[in-house]
């Protein structure tokens, strides 16, 4: 039985603060932060992950009725499909179905419906799915796929976004004008421009005339891939009764249900998506990339589950990749170092289909000034169709690509004007209350605190000794901002149910990708209800049939948005419990509280545990009946204040829900004989509003830093004439245990978000945004050169030093 708990009221008499713990508004922060908010509790999924018990999509057991799918893909970057002959494949024993685009005329897409499940009249990238086959073994499926004959008529391709928008370029999507499109995306039919976002603020041309220093640069940031260690995997089963079940490694079960339903022209409730643990997402498993392929094949073999798992090779180029950026940057400042004007043009290589990619273009557009307070801004951000792999969301959503270039330009501008780079950032960075490039007023943020703490931690003013005579050391800093990029009405919901044993089941639609969301939601529910953390469980797997709606697990939005919904649901349950017990005790619910799983009265000092009463209610005296019933709390959250942005000027009152800002600083050592760059130490400082679980927040900062360093030194998809020439770990290197710096400091800054749970906002993506420019700026500090476009391989750095005459 629970021990007697203190009935001392923690809220002093006369507290008129509207922000109390029991306040039902999700906007309250709470002057007393209840446990376990702010505590680094152990992850609730750790035990099953270290014992091998955790179930991922490929671990689910199906039995002998399982079929294996293989996809036949276009070998041409751009081609008409003349004929598909699957007769030999279908004749092979063990082959149960072949699916092609002929049977699936519907369009799929999140922001722009521009792709079919299988190609219909033409293929638009090497890897574009043309046919699918299901067979009883993987071997037979492989053989069958090889027997499917496709006749193509190659068409002239587009491999570069600047060429893509020129009048000479072939039109890759002639029907662009007919596609369904979200009202905040602006395609230009009759061209390859699938989105054009503009900012027109002030008068950049006049402002440049007043600039003492101007930096003008072109950068090309290459495509990269998310490289989740678990490749994409989906199992689909179509029942005779027209219900579709999908098991997938998915960040977004509800979005998948929605997009696939629309693509098939059926109602969302006919589809059930079940999503177990995800072995790494980083955006690749958001939206729909390959999942609909298994659905289409499954529809041809009703009753039998069909599994499609991407090979590592396919993972590199046939799901989602991060788009590449060709960017032209021009910025200027006056003699005192005040940035006066920014004039940037971004040409995004959107790939063959940009149903998701168009929004990265938009996000990079409205955040295109970088985290700076600049009065005159002109941005043109173009998303261009090319015959390259399909681009989709990747951690940072346009911000890493943008900052990779932009933060090197600001660094150059600082040097031009003779100002210390840290001082330059502090002088010009965006602050609370500033009007940013879209006309939105910036909410309270701690960016300056991040810069100050990061530069102090890296000992910015101190020069440290290199480890050998042929080595040079340098320090670099870069700042960032990012807002969740999503439709204005992306919603979260949650319900909380209590069990006889006083445990709490939290039901959510958001996914655990490793970022720790299940743990954080359990913390939020425990805190809002007043129960011990270890009595709270999160119901898994996420299943669209039973779980409450969640837009997607993307945008670093869950702690904030879903956290609000969970908090509201827990407070709703709390309210029901307090009303029940108050009725039983003849008291005012306002005098009651729940502490450690026990309901207490501050007035009468009565106590009762949650056992049983949350299901069976409380009996009235003298056998006169019962009070209460099974307790279920519900809550939701959807931002209501995001406004549109003008199509011509990009101006609007509230472009986004909020920004997370931050800073990274690195110290590097460059080997002047080889160009190899070692990271001596790294510092990250981000304003997360409120760290619900500080160690997990630091883990995001560390993981993001290393992933960022990996992109800074190693990563680029080497596309040649549309062919991905490095689709394996041998040639696409990612950071290993020997590459991680031994000294990474993760600093948490907390300037509360007014509508986040206890002030929290996101961190997941931001942690890898400023890394490339921090490294490039540090290399410049060390050896006085910039090595052009990332990744900064030893060869590139060495050749840059050679070109500059620093080495012979």
């Amino acid at each position, binding site marked *: 039985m629970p021990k007697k708990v203190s009935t001392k009221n923690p809220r002093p008499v006369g507290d008129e603060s509207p922000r109390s713990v029991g306040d039902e508004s999700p906007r309250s922060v709470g002057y007393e932060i209840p446990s376990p908010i702010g505590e*680094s509790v*152990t*992850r609730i*999924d*750790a*035990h099953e*992950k*270290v*014992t*091998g*018990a*955790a*179930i*991922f999509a*490929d*671990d689910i*057991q199906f039995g002998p009725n399982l079929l294996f799918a293989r996809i036949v893909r276009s070998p041409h970057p751009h081609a008409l499909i003349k004929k598909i002959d699957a007769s030999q494949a279908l004749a092979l024993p063990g082959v149960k179905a072949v699916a092609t685009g002929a049977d699936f005329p519907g369009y799929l897409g999140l922001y722009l419906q521009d792709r079919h499940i299988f190609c219909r009249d033409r293929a638009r990238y090497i890897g574009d799915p043309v046919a699918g086959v299901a067979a009883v073994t993987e*071997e037979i499926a492989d053989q069958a796929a090889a027997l499917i004959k496709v006749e193509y008529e190659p068409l002239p391709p587009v491999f570069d976004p600047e060429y893509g928008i020129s009048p000479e370029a072939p039109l890759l999507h002639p029907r662009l004008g007919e596609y369904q499109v979200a009202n905040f995306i602006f395609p230009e039919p009759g061209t390859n421009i699938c989105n054009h976002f503009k900012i027109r603020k002030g008068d950049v041309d006049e402002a440049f005339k007043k600039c003492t220093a101007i930096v003008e640069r072109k950068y090309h940031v290459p495509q990269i891939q*998310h*490289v*989740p*260690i*678990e*490749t994409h995997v989906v199992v689909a089963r179509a029942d005779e009764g027209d219900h579709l079940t999908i098991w997938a490694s998915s960040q977004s079960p509800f979005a998948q249900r929605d997009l696939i339903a629309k693509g098939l022209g059926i109602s969302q409730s006919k589809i059930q998506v079940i999503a177990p*643990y*995800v*072995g*790494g*997402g*980083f955006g690749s498993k958001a939206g729909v990339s390959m999942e609909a392929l298994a659905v289409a094949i499954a529809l041809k073999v009703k009753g039998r589950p069909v599994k499609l798992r991407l*090979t*590592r090779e396919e993972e590199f180029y046939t799901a989602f990749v991060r788009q590449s950026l060709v960017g032209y940057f021009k910025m200027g400042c006056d003699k005192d170092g005040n940035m006066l004007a920014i004039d940037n043009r971004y040409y995004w290589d959107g790939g063959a289909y940009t149903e998701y990619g168009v929004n990265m273009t938009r996000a990079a557009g409205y955040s295109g000034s970088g985290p700076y307070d600049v009065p005159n801004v002109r941005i043109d951000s173009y998303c261009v169709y090319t015959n390259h792999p399909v681009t989709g969301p990747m951690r940072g959503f346009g911000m890493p690509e943008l900052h990779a270039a932009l933060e090197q330009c600001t660094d150059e501008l600082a040097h031009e004007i003779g100002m210390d780079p840290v001082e330059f950032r502090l002088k010009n960075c965006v602050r609370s209350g500033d009007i940013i490039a879209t006309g939105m007023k910036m909410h309270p943020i701690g960016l300056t605190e991040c810069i100050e703490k990061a530069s102090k931690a890296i000992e910015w003013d101190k020069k440290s000794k290199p480890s050998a005579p042929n080595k040079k050391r340098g320090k670099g800093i870069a700042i960032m901002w990012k807002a969740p990029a999503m439709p204005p009405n992306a919603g979260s919901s949650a319900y909380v149910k209590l069990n006889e044993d006083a445990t709490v089941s939290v039901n959510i639609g958001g996914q655990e*990708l*490793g*970022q*720790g969301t299940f743990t954080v939601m359990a913390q939020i529910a425990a805190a809002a209800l007043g129960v011990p953390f270890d009595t709270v469980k999160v119901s898994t797997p996420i299943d669209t049939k039973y779980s409450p709606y969640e837009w997607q697990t993307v945008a670093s939005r869950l702690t904030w948005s879903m956290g609000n919904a969970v908090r509201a649901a827990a407070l709703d349950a709390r309210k029901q419990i307090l009303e029940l017990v108050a009725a039983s005790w003849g008291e005012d619910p306002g005098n009651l509280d729940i502490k450690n799983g026990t309901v207490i009265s501050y007035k009468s000092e009565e106590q009762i545990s949650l056992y049983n009463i949350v299901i069976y209610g409380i009996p009235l005296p003298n056998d006169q009946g019962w009070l209460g019933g099974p307790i279920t709390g519900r809550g939701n959250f959807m931002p209501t204040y995001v406004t549109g942005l003008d199509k011509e000027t990009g101006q609007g009152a509230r472009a986004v829900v909020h920004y997370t800002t931050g800073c990274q600083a690195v110290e590097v050592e460059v080997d002047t004989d080889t160009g190899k760059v070692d990271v001596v130490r790294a510092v990250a400082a981000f304003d997360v509003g409120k760290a619900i679980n500080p*160690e*997990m927040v630091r*883990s995001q900062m*560390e*993981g*993001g*830093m*290393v*992933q960022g360093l990996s992109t800074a030194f190693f990563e680029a998809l080497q596309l040649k004439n549309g062919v991905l020439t490095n689709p*394996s*770990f*041998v040639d696409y290197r*990612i*950071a*290993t*245990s*020997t590459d*991680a710096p*031994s000294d*990474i400091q993760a600093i948490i800054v907390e300037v509360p978000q007014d509508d986040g749970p206890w002030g929290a906002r996101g961190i997941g993506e931001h942690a890898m945004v400023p890394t490339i420019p921090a490294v490039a700026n540090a290399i410049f500090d060390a050896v006085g050169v910039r090595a052009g476009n990332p990744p900064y391989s030893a060869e590139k750095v060495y050749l840059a030093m050679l070109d500059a005459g620093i080495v012979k």
Partner: protein
Amino acid sequence: MSMHKINLTVNGSKEQVDVPSNWTLLQMLREKLAVTGTKNGCSAGECGACTVMLNGEPVNSCMVLAVECDGAVVTTVEGLAQDGKLDPVQEEIIKAGGVQCGFCTPGVLISARALLNRNPHPTEFQIRDALVGNLCRCTGYVRIIEAVKNAAQRSV
């Protein structure tokens, strides 16, 4: 493809399995024996998600043929805990916060256990070197390395 009957011990348990000659140890574990803790990340011996101990040595099980394992002793992540008590590497990786998505974790734990078995007091460099074949995309490795250090300290 011919079938072969092989006998082996997996996590202390005797198994007799019929496998096609071209199947890997990874396939046999996951698809014949339903021991799914060990993961497939690349099928090419590059990512380490499939790491198991084969006769005490850490191997990429996607690069070992099942038929090579006749008479072998195999330990997977499921075999690290003894009688419900977690191995020190498992306990320490939880405490250090070195688990995020968990997909690389089984392979990492085997590599770590194999390292400490042959070198109970490794230097940081030796730890990094032993783990270089286990790719992780989430953690940045810092807490994994910390965990292995702490596990090593426990056997002082």
